[in-house]
């Protein structure tokens, strides 16, 4: 018997029954999640989603600024780097390659990083107001390494991509059809932190020390 069959047989012994029939399995597949009902979505504080998102982000030590158009992103990034005493260099996601980075005085490299970059710039697929979270999908356009290796992580988020809860994100992923789930979906809520030494919170454990959102709206 294969490992799979051994474990499954043992589970069925524990459950006191044999394998489920096709009809029963189909019925399970047709359920809307385990409870076969719409998810229970917590009520969010009153106010526009952007405001709720910002409050969530700031609660976890993230920061946010707004730009009116996507074209303004390189300039805003240049301002952020200068403001943090960093040189005008950044590892940028290929999804943002078409912007005029050199025009803003930034030496941008496009693609994954191996850790030599102080700043990484990515594009979020969705923002979630509930906790001020960013949802990033991996792919050639958005390498995952940019989210974790640089000290400063700057994330571009379109206002139209802001949703109230995580659940609609899963719905939207299913609608991607063939492409379905990417290798990685990163839900990021604030900069890296640890409390492993004497329960003292320290930012920048292994990932970015700071997280900045550029909201394009």
């Amino acid at each position: 018997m294969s490992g799979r069959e051994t474990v499954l047989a043992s589970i069925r012994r524990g459950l006191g029954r044999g394998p489920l029939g096709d009809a029963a399995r189909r019925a399970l597949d047709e359920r809307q999640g385990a409870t076969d009902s719409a998810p229970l979505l917590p009520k969010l504080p009153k106010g526009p989603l952007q405001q709720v998102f910002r409050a969530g982000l700031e609660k976890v030590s993230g920061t946010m600024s707004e730009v009116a158009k996507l074209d303004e992103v390189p300039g805003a990034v240049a301002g952020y780097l200068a403001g943090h005493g960093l040189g005008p260099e950044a590892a940028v996601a290929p999804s943002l390659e078409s912007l005029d980075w050199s025009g803003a005085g930034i030496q941008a490299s496009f693609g994954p990083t191996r850790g030599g970059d102080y700043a990484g710039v990515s594009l979020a697929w969705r923002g979630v107001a509930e906790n001020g979270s960013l949802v990033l999908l991996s792919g050639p356009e958005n390498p995952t390494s940019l989210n974790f290796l640089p000290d400063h992580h700057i994330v571009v988020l379109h206002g139209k991509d802001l949703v109230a809860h995580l659940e609609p994100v899963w719905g939207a992923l299913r609608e991607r059809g063939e492409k379905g789930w990417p290798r990685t979906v990163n839900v990021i809520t604030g900069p890296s932190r640890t409390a492993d030494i004497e329960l003292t919170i320290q930012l920048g454990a292994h990932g970015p020390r700071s997280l900045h959102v550029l909201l394009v709206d």
Partner: protein
Amino acid sequence: MESLSHAFKERSVHALKDETLQVALNRAKDGFAVKRAKAVEGLPEFDALRDRAVAIKNHTLENLDHYLERYADAVERNGGKVHWASSAEDARRIVVEICRAAGAKMITKGKSMVGEEVGVNGALEGAGFEVVETDLGEYIIQLAHEPPSHIIVPAVHKTRGQIADLFHENHQKYGLTRKLSEVPEMVNEARQVLRSKYLEADVGITGANFLIAESGTSVIVTNEGNGDLTCSLPRVHIVTAGIEKVVPTAEDATTLLRLLARSATGQDLTTYTTFSTGPKRADDTDGPEEYHVVLVDSGRSTMLADQFREMLRCIRCGACMNHCPVYGAIGGHAYGWVYPGPMGSVLTPLSVGLKEAGNLPNACTLNGHCAEVCPVRIPLPDLLRTLRHREYQLKLGLKPLRWGLAAWVWFTSHPRIYRLGTRVQARMLATLAGRKGRFTRMPLAGGWFKGGRDLPAPQGETFMAVWTRRRKERGQ
């Protein structure tokens, strides 16, 4: 992992006398409970979400074979490979084989309790691999050659000074020779050392907080980002997960996520919630080339058969130990195996046997605080009591206690003799205590006094005697 649970009594007494440990435990004591209470207060739907979580877990467990098959098929569709481990031994062998086949030298690990349970590190080191834990807490205890003392804060028993010593001793080989004293510089130094390990590693091993059946996705939550570096930089990613981790959909996982961090650390959500689905795609520029999942049974399927199925709802948040006064007094190591506190006191005897770990379910006052805070409403005190019942039936407990109980039951089911006996006892104890009103010692009752307390003396007459006399006086 080998169990030391048989030595619980000695280890707990030792822990109570360990002053450094007591300093660390006192620091942790209120922090978690206060933070959790605040986080729960901030989410009015918390209790309703708990009910949902219970329903999600119960339904999935009832159909566990179905959802695991759906999960495994989805993983393979995405280009990953699923390995089924019936036992801890199977799991160790499978992980070692994957690493060998990958030609690995260096392996990084994200925190995985099931990894600790089956003893992955020992097996890999035995097979000649270099294994580096990357969660800061796990890294610290790896340097100290200790098991975790808490399931979410593995080094909670260590003080800053002890950690500084460990770093000083172990980081010199990297040219880091200065002795540190402040938390930020220690975190930075660990970051620096571990950064090179992530980039060097051939294989990254993580656990999973949830497995999503519909998409074949494994979910991990971390605050440090170590889990992400572990699963995205090396060539091979191995996920080790208990079979009970599966849920049908991403929405189901999201409901559980709303409870997990709040119950664990009092955060609304951890910093990084990462959903991994298979190896890198054809056009991806980063990510692992191989994605393996090791599904571990190791006794879990047996728990499906009875009351202990409820324990399989556990999402490993640690709230039960954070609120357990016994854990708070002795810390996690005294329990002697991987899982400490109330959840560990249920799981350990089921895994290593009641003969080995019979003390654990008994070392509990049944105060119920753990069940009150459990996000998936596991009736931990009831399960502990059931284990005591098993122990009693197997005649494993202390003999004098059995005899005492038998005598007490006989006594309590013979009311007339009971009345007489209690009268004599109350009168005698009151007389013996004399004008002091309490005892500072007493033969055969050493246990009570060993707890550093006196025993108040009875008032003298039993209530029943007073009552009977009164009724006579009133002529009733």
